[in-house]
């Protein structure tokens, strides 16, 4: 039986970890961008927004599965993501290491 994929967000240290506690990504926006300030893109059902500061797409991960989130980060570690604390595919755990 396959183990269910889980993703853990540490909102204090801004890190995303997998089920084994390995860091998948550090969520660090040097521009201090806010989702509500990003440009909405037509016909994208608001799943992506454009950051005017750096020109990158920011992807809303709220509707993804945890597995898709892990794959996306592994496929493109530089991908810029939006993660809301409390969204259904991510559990919250502050690392004390």
């Amino acid at each position: 039986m396959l183990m269910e994929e889980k993703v853990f967000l540490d909102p204090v240290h801004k890190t995303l970890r997998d089920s084994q506690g390995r860091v998948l990504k550090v969520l660090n926006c040097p521009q201090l961008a806010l989702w509500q300030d990003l440009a909405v893109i037509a016909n994208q059902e608001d799943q992506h927004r454009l950051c005017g500061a750096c020109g990158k797409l920011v992807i809303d991960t709220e509707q993804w599965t945890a597995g898709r989130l892990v794959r996306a980060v592994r496929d493109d570690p530089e991908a810029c993501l939006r993660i809301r604390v409390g969204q259904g595919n991510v559990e919250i755990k502050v690392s004390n290491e």
Partner: protein
Amino acid sequence: MNKNVHEQRMLVIRTARTEKEINQAARNGFYPLVKRVSPSPEIRSKYAVYQNPESGEVQVVGDYRSAGEGNEVIGFTYYYPHSFPSPFAAYLIPPDIKVGEVVILEDLIEDVVSGRWNQGDVFRLASCRATWNGNDFILQHSASSEEVVLG
């Protein structure tokens, strides 16, 4: 240390968190704007600890939705999740900063709430835009009802 700029040409203000770092910066031409490091009682995270009664290994969880394995040996408990090396710190002011200039405070000294979670956790703002008024920084931030992380 050099004056650092973002892609938007915004000055980044560094923070020194020890006596040694502050004095090094002063010798390098920065004016250290010293402030107390004062933890806010409002900022908190929670944890619970579960323990396997046979192996003794523990599992820490921080989310009511997480299923802990084993016996609950510490129930959900709130705590202040940050630690800093000194009870004081300083923003390092470069000599060429202009009154009214908007900057990025890379490592905020003040405890400011960035957002909340409906499970009770309250998060600390790590970085912030601010305006220099000649004596101090006026923070440009309003707390959100939810915590959203971008990056």
